[in-house]
């Protein structure tokens, strides 16, 4: 039980910190003008040159290996919804680090997601 809790924490904090770094990188890259394959390829190539993106990669890799280990111990219908605790951690990160305007309705949605996660984790 303890190892599941530890790996779940690695999964959640690794993915959230990694994704916040990646969001920084993508916002710095800027929005692509059109979603055509050629322009998307050029846009993604530009994004891959951003340092923030690469700062997020090791954190997301750590999270990925925690996911693989968890999937070998627990059913997918527990592992994936339980990892949704990262929605709260991620929303706090979005508000205080990325300075996004998290409205009451958005918070209500996150709380519902959390309640759902608690129920799913109870099984």
């Amino acid at each position: 039980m303890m190892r599941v809790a530890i790996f779940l924490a690695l999964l959640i904090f690794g993915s959230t910190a990694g994704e916040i770094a990646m969001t920084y990188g993508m916002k710095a890259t800027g929005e692509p003008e059109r979603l055509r394959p050629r322009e998307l390829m050029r846009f993604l190539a530009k994004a891959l040159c951003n340092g923030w993106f690469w700062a997020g990669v090791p954190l997301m890799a750590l999270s990925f290996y925690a996911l693989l280990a968890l999937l070998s111990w627990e059913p997918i219908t527990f592992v994936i919804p339980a990892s949704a605790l990262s929605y709260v951690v991620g929303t706090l990160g979005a508000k205080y680090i990325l300075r996004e305007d998290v409205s009451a309705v958005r918070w209500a949605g996150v709380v519902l997601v959390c309640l759902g996660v608690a129920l799913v984790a109870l099984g």
Partner: protein
Amino acid sequence: MASESRLRLKTLVMVSAMVICANAGDLMLKRAMLQIGAVELTVPGIAHAFRMTVTSGTLWVGIFFLIGFMLSYMTVLSWADYSYVMPAGAFGYALLTLLAVVFLHEAVSPRRWVGVVLICAGVLLVGQTKPRTTEVAREVLA
């Protein structure tokens, strides 16, 4: 107004691509790990699991889908809020649970089903908010 609905439409398209790729990828990973067996947390155990994972075709198919997820996630984050995209992506839970029941024959209790419904309701609420609340730079054409 037109740009607002265009923003919502392209966000929806990208989030759908994210959900499909993430679910397909996770299912493939689970299938691969079922074939490999439980990972033992010892040096030889981890070395064995590493050898088995890098040579598993099913795992590589899963990784291919997860790369698709990553690319669509990166693209949508260039214009939309992280706090919008991340919960919106959870819409795949209903799909994931159905796929896990149908393909992996996992048993899902009524309480878990209620949890999945609550998660989806939360995602729908988040979907009511504006996808973008911060300034986004237009990509400078080289």
